[in-house]
């Protein structure tokens, strides 16, 4: 047989990860309220399904945008022919305005610096092709989105070196963790080209503090490397602290028009903020015109359908709509998150305090039979197969501490969430009797470190603590 490429035959597509295996199990036995009430509930997919009614009502009021018409005239032909990789100007203008609005208009973006791509997946890969050679490395704080292993490394040959973050300080990035990662890369003879952060974080659901952002700016300045800020969840910051974009920090520090300025790039998408992952709308924003030029040419490999650009340019130019959407969406996300947190509490489970995202970073360390990743996998399998919830194990996100899981809350109805929490509660109750006393002894060592960090305010856990004190 004609041999295939190494890329085709290796595993760098990352799909043998447990993150994707959970999905496969879900596909085989998906929950449905009516037809399959005992199926697996999908809690591993970071989708925003809470605000479609707002989009649909906009569509109903704006029939032209939907059906290839402008001012009553058909523009089907013009759209069908439009393949300019510079993108539809009206769409780019509307998109940068939307991005600014999400950032409280504290920063503005230049439409000439934005490059449209087929989703954030394509944006991230394209930036790697632009910024790094095969064999170079990017530093990423852990835990991180499992898809990065494919998007950043697979076809580009770029390596990822983790910046290890721990629960000891809410998984925030520290100066020492950055330095350690940099040294790790050097030991492996990897040239570090930059740092990539996701802000707000997937899977943590937290937005970065100003201190962390300052730290990053100092670090990339010092090492003279790039910074990519994947801000695809920026529109999901539903409670304080308010989102601080890397651009804001640069502006506040008067770093515009400096070298550092040109080494900062943002990735955006409408898949999370607007809940439109199927439409494949991603973007790269760079302050470096050479990167913009190169990325623009590369976008030929994954342009945004003109049909979609047109629809969204109309939608996002409607400022009244975007204002209302952003506000309502935040409220719904916040409300839904609290329902998840309350449900988890009833099951004696806590999670990282978070203000953004479509998921919670859930702490199930106390349910592990041992402080190991094997135990985490064991627990995960039970949750997928016995409890019938597809959640994502922390190891698939490269977390260095076993026992953490990402649980999504915005991709299902409220009733389904309720059911999921009931299942979880029963499960925890059933193992509590057998395993808990055995594990409490192990957990007491960790207790003092974590107690003050987490808001774990539920009765049973407090009782246990009092016993141990």
């Amino acid at each position, binding site marked *: 047989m004609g041999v295939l490429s190494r890329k085709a035959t290796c595993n760098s597509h990352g799909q043998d990860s447990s993150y994707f295996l959970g999905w496969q199990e879900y596909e085989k036995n998906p929950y449905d309220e009516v037809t399959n009430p005992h199926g697996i509930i999908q809690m591993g997919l970071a989708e925003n399904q809470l605000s479609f009614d707002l989009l*649909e009502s906009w569509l109903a009021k704006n029939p032209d945008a939907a059906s290839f018409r402008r001012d009553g005239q*058909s523009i089907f032909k013009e759209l069908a022919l*439009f393949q300019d990789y510079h993108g539809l100007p009206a769409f780019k203008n509307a998109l940068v305005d939307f991005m600014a609005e999400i950032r409280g208009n504290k920063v503005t973006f230049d439409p000439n610096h934005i490059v449209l791509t087929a989703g954030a997946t394509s944006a991230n890969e394209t930036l790697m092709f632009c910024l790094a050679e095969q064999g170079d490395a990017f530093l990423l704080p852990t835990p991180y989105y499992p898809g990065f292993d494919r998007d950043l490394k697979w076809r580009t040959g770029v390596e990822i070196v983790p910046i290890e973050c721990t629960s000891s300080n809410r998984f925030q990035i520290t100066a020492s963790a950055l330095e350690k990662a940099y040294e790790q890369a050097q030991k492996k003879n990897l040239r570090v080209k930059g740092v990539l952060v996701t802000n707000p974080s997937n899977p943590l659901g937290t937005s970065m503090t100003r201190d962390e952002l300052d730290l990053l700016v100092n670090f990339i300045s010092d090492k003279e490397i790039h910074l990519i800020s994947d801000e695809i969840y920026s529109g999901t910051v539903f409670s304080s602290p308010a989102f601080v974009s890397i651009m804001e920090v640069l502006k506040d520090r008067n770093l515009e028009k400096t070298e550092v300025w040109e080494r900062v790039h943002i990735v955006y998408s409408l898949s999370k903020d607007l809940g439109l992952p199927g439409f*494949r709308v991603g973007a790269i924003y760079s302050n470096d015109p050479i990167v913009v030029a190169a990325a623009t040419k590369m976008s030929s490999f994954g342009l945004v359908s003109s049909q979609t650009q047109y629809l969204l340019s109309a939608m996002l130019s409607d400022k009244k709509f975007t204002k209302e959407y952003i506000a309502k969406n935040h409220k719904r996300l916040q409300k839904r998150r609290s329902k998840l947190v309350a449900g988890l509490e009833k099951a004696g489970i806590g999670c990282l305090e978070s203000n953004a995202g479509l998921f919670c970073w859930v702490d199930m360390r106390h349910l592990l039979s041992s402080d190991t990743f094997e135990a985490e996998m064991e627990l995960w399998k039970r949750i997928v197969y016995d409890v019938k919830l597809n959640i994502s194990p922390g190891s698939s996100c490269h977390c260095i501490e076993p026992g953490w899981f990402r649980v999504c809350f915005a991709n299902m109805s409220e009733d389904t969430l309720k059911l999921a929490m009931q299942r979880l509660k029963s499960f925890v109750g059933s193992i509590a009797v057998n395993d808990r006393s055995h594990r409490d002894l192990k957990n007491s060592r960790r207790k003092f470190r974590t107690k003050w960090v987490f808001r774990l305010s539920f009765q049973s856990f407090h009782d246990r603590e009092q016993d141990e004190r």
Partner: protein
Amino acid sequence: MVAISKIATGNGHGENSPYFDGWKAYETNPFHPKDRPDGVIQMGLAENQLCFNFIKKWVMEHPEASLCSAQGVAKFKETALFQDYHGMPEFRQAVAKFMGKVRGDRVKFDPDRVVMSGGATGAHEMVAFCLADPGEAFLVPTPYYPGFDRDLRWRTGVELVPVVCESSNDFKITRNALETAYEKAKEANLRVKGLLITNPSNPLGTILDRETLKGIVKFINEKNIHLIGDEIYAATVFMEPEFVSISEIIEEVECNRDLIHIVYSLSKDMGFPGFRVGIVYSYNDAVVSCARKMSSFGLVSSQTQHLIASMLSDDGFVDSFIVESKDRLFKRHKYFTWSLSQVGIGSLKSNAGLFIWMDLRKLLKEKTFEAEMDLWRVIINEVKLNVSPGSSFHCNEPGWFRVCFANMDDHTMEVALLRIRTFMLKHNEAMVPQKLCRRSSLKLSLSRRRDGFMSPSIMSPQSPLVRAIN
């Protein structure tokens, strides 16, 4: 200060080719019947604009296909959420059916082998990533589409080795040429992983005959290399001989099917380059699997998948469209080539595509590519037509130009022909003053203009280099 990548700063994007220079000239002075009647007419863009009124009618009559209309909005949410890289089943089924119909239903395509990509551009790059490692090579018959230099090589690190075809035998792909190219690659220490053919050909507008195709399939099996068939112009075959697809040949001769892959798109056959519908169809399961994962980098917008699924599952529409499109292309091609022949310009005999391979060898001052460039500059700057010089297609012989005929309305076509006539008259006078002066009374009948086929002024940019007018 750390640099950005070599890929980003190098010339691998291929945009310094003269192919794109012509577009730049057009961009600075684009023709418009009212506002810029002396502007440059774009004849360098292979677009199919002849059937839009036909398609538009269908779109108007099927609001549910537009997803966001009142009739379609019930599907909005599930479609907007659909990012499965397998693609919508209805979409794959409709595309597979369409591909079959375009080949006269002589073969059937399996929807499960249909993999999406970001246009044919994305498809080619994806196939290269799947089949070859950096430093390995594909053989490509010349002349070939300039975009291949970028699509197959830029980010993949794959090399292209030309299979040189000559005008002496109408640019047919001979066994000899294939062997020569293969040996050349060996000499250069390049491992050949595959052969890429474009059938129907861009820029030639011809199709490969059955014998040539069989010979090609035999060749790749002997060498155990892949065959990639770019068939994006399959539905533009407007007259005999009938199109023969690789998918048909492999039913007729012995072939290791794991070596066979087809690249398809709706950009040319339907005239939808803006919708970015590219397809990789492979007979190799491992390639389908890998390509599907890679398609994450260039999925087709689900909004567009929905539209295409609706449109292409309408058998009545598809059957009429295929016939109508061929008819319009045939008529346009016939008129254009006839008009050119009236002023002594010949072209390669062709039966497909959206362009002709125009023969201007006798207009060259000398048989060199410099002379070709000189002539080309005259055509752009004086005749004010953007045509594409053969050298940008890696043609081994100077004097050939690709001229597109399906991307303009009738009026613009007439203006272009008038300019060509004027130019040729001047040229013929200069060459043979007495004899050809009588030709100045040439009056070509304009009654061949199609009635009711005057489309509104072209407003949208037609090349990736032109900024949109909005």
